[in-house]
């Protein structure tokens, strides 16, 4: 039996051929690293003095100064809500939001901004497909859907535009609220409950402490009406997050402001998804497989570089493309992955299970001499 599969330049054997395997592996490793890595950092990387004075033993607080580069990449090494709500770092949205509220000096913000811009430029939106711990959780839900045999609906171009507008609204609203609640503007105490506005409704606020073993610390914060509103809103957003991943694969990723911030670098990144239009037969396998419901890989007829702001570079299209060298992932013009049509064994789950009687029938039906 034949089926299309992509191969890596280094051509490893068996399951190691597929980008999907490496993507899953990366998601698991980064999920563990980001959610539990703070503890490792506290134990292994921080100085003895810092461990004894600042970081409580066993805490998930990511110590500053240990791996500063990772602190700036979105989401950060440890989400603010992972470490019992008391982490000191955060994603790029949290960084901008907090910097605006506390009026942080540009000298403090610029190094972090530089790291974010540099990494986003180098790998574009690869973060969303391979690294983001929230989307790893979402992919787990998606796998649950497949296991249950449920279908999904694709998001059309019109809806994708609306959702991207929603992401801009979330990003802009976060920036605006963060600036408006600056301490010198405080006239009423309720404003302080809007500190880090997006973080308060981010799915990570409720999901990360649970998986980090900190318990449902953020689920019942009702001290003030504004805080209670944000808590209920976070429930709704987490529900939306789960429902969208189960029913429409990565619909949430169209709304995510962190994904929006990285998507600005996708088109100009040296990590490029390149199509050879003459080899494409418009079979549509790429469009069917795309978790972001993108169709431009199938529809593109002229332009070679396919980096769309919404593409998360999960390489599902490269993996399922049945044409040799039609789709290629390149970094600085150097090919990394190419689509290949290979003769392989079919996936175990789709092979028909033959009972003893069926096997007898098959043997009987076989032509003479075979």
């Amino acid at each position: 039996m034949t089926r299309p599969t992509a191969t890596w330049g280094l051509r490893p054997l068996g399951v190691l051929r597929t980008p999907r395997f490496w993507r899953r592996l990366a998601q698991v490793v980064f999920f563990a690293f980001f959610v539990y890595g703070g503890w490792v950092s506290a134990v292994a990387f921080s100085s003895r003095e810092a461990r004894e004075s600042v970081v409580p033993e066993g805490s998930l607080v990511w110590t500053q100064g240990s791996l500063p580069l990772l602190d700036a990449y979105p989401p950060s090494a440890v989400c603010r809500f992972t470490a019992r709500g008391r982490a000191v770092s955060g994603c790029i949205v949290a960084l901008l939001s907090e910097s605006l509220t506390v009026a942080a000096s540009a000298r403090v913000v610029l190094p972090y901004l530089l790291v974010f811009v540099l990494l986003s430029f180098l790998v574009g939106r690869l973060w969303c497909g391979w690294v983001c711990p929230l989307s790893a959780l979402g992919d787990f839900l998606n796998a649950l859907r497949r296991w249950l045999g449920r279908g999904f609906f694709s998001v059309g171009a019109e809806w994708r535009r609306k959702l991207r507008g929603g992401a801009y609204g979330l990003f802009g609203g976060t920036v605006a609220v963060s600036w408006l609640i600056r301490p010198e503007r405080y006239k009423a105490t309720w404003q302080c409950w809007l500190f880090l506005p997006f973080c308060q409704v981010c799915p990570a606020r409720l999901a990360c402490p649970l998986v980090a073993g900190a318990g449902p610390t953020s689920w019942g914060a009702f001290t003030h009406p504004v805080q209670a509103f944000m808590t209920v809103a976070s429930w709704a957003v987490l529900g939306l997050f789960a429902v969208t991943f189960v029913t429409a694969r990565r619909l949430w990723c169209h709304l995510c402001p962190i994904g929006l911030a990285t998507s600005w670098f996708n088109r100009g990144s040296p990590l490029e998804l390149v199509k050879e239009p003459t080899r494409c037969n418009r079979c549509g396998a790429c469009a069917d497989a795309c978790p972001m419901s993108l169709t431009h890989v199938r529809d593109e007829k002229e332009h070679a570089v396919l980096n769309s702001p919404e593409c998360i570079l999960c390489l599902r299209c490269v993996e399922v493309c049945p044409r040799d060298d039609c789709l290629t992932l390149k970094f600085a013009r150097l090919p990394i992955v190419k689509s290949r049509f290979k003769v392989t064994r079919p996936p175990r789950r789709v092979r028909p299970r033959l009972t003893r009687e069926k096997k007898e029938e098959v043997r009987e039906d076989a032509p003479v001499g075979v």
Partner: protein
Amino acid sequence: MGEARTQLGILIPEAAASAPPESQWLVEGTLSFVPGALTSTTGFRILEEPGEVPDPSVRRGADSGSGEVPIQVTGEVAYPDGSLMFVDVCFPVTLAEARSHRYWLVAAPEGRARGYQPEPGASLPVITFVLRQESGSAPPAIDMTVGQMMVRVDQHPGLYYYWYLVPLVGILAVLVWRKVHLR
């Protein structure tokens, strides 16, 4: 109940070699705290060395050999539950030439909110410090990392710390160029 201590490092980079030795500086900055961490600033102390905290009943003033640095606390902003959200602090430091000095910020027990469990990580401040010379006119540049209150003192305000803008602008320029030309 132990004190919540935060390490405070003040470093003089190479650019400060021109500063007069043993010069007095004023460190001004804003500390931010999570809800419920502290209720008042009466217990705020800055120590030169970790060790015994001086008797809280003793009035703080000029350093009398106790290792304590006098600190002025102003501009308190509180959460609705009364605990502190932002605090402006100001204290003098003596920086020797090309040396670094570490201080200890102590939030004494009387400043804690009721029922608050002592957890040093809980009072990690998020700070933007401004350092200025007592008699000088132009404030020198500073830099710091969040959390451990690492304050870097520099004599050169302005462009020295803005070198980050050079690669930042460069990357953005390449990005725009690629967006326009690499279709």
